[in-house]
């Protein structure tokens, strides 16, 4: 068995590490949450965004943690981040299902192009990769000048109204749209360059 410690160090079976010692080293859920809460929230936000239910993100994460506490932390986990992210995504999908049921006749698959539980395991690799891609994006922001960064972070990231950004920059809303497209192209190119270098 290989256990990924929260710090990213992997401990493998070896004469120096007994199975009993590994069992004793099952991490604290609180420590895991402290380490991976951003990843949990991010996957929940990504899941709920298309339905406009991002206000329920905290409920989904909270429900995931409660369900883990009720079941107890398993001892055979290889990737704790994947375990927590999966739990959070399941709860987000449960919320989407509940919302879909409330709006009679609409099906989760129709709205989101994915089934709920069955796809979670397959999605999880992609969801964990989400954190890596967000880091890559943040590293790529240096290609933008100050005004472009305002567009990236405030307009696209924080969804501030285009008119506000236009007023702040002293340009027309149409010019802000041009800048937005330009910013996205610059970031795409920089991220591709960085991916290729790795």
């Amino acid at each position: 068995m290989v256990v990924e410690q929260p710090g990213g160090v992997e401990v493998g079976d070896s004469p120096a590490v007994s199975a009993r010692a590994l069992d004793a080293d099952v991490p604290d859920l609180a420590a895991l949450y402290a380490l991976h809460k951003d990843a949990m929230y991010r996957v929940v936000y990504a899941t709920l965004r298309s339905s406009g239910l991002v206000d329920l993100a905290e409920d989904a994460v909270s429900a995931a943690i409660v369900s883990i506490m009720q079941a107890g932390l398993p001892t055979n986990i290889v990737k704790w981040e994947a375990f927590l992210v999966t739990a959070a995504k399941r709860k987000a999908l449960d919320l989407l299902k509940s919302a879909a049921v409330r709006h009679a006749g609409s099906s989760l698959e129709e709205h989101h192009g994915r089934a709920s539980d069955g796809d979670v395991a397959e999605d999880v690799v992609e969801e964990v990769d989400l954190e890596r891609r967000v880091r890559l994006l943040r590293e790529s922001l240096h290609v933008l000048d100050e005004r472009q960064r305002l567009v990236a972070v405030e307009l696209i990231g924080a969804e501030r109204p285009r008119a506000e950004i236009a007023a702040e920059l002293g340009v027309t809303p149409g010019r802000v749209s041009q800048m937005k497209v330009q910013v996205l192209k610059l970031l795409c190119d920089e991220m591709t360059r960085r991916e290729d270098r790795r």
Partner: protein
Amino acid sequence: MNDEERERVVDALAKGKRRPEEVLRAAAVEPDDHAELRAMADTSELLWLSQHQAPPLSEDPVAAMLGLVPDETCTLDPKAFARARKSAGLKPSGIASRLRQKGWATTDADVFHWETRPTAAAAVPPAVVQTLAQILGRTVGQITTAPNVEHAEANPIEALRSDPGFKGLVARWARLWHLSLPDASVALERRLAMTVHRGRTPDTAQMLESLDALVTATERSAQSAHEPR
């Protein structure tokens, strides 16, 4: 296709309310442009996600419930902790190492400061205090300062206090942490207070369910820590 049209397509792709094929078809986007617009939409979504993460610990009710927020009802006592560590025959580096095994990013210097700086000790969250007690083979009460129950009056979770289910949880928490019943009640209420302070008041059943999960998980953890190795 001008920039405003491209912006609209990218936004629609990023928000994912419709399938990408539908968005591209509805906007009559040339096939040669599909890959570029999808890449821009992915980047747009990443930018949005980069601004959406967990709330700070001090505003995070899950963190509070898990004992990640420092709590004056469970403050590490520097002298008592130092005595317990020496009595257990462990160096600060040994404590730090065992905490790291449990997932906590603790340095040797952190442990040293917990013994020498009261402000550092006061910043140790209850979840770490609990693990320290397990490592040292002590009760939480033996390495913490006496809780101040006067703060209970300020806690807004009044309805919960009279609930028989809550009283049962308080009794279990008191046994687990070797606390008096009033102290245990304050400690549990503190774990929930953050939710109420943020204007989200879950009903009593929800709060009891969360607390029951917390108490059960803590009991399980304490039991496994005391099993013979």
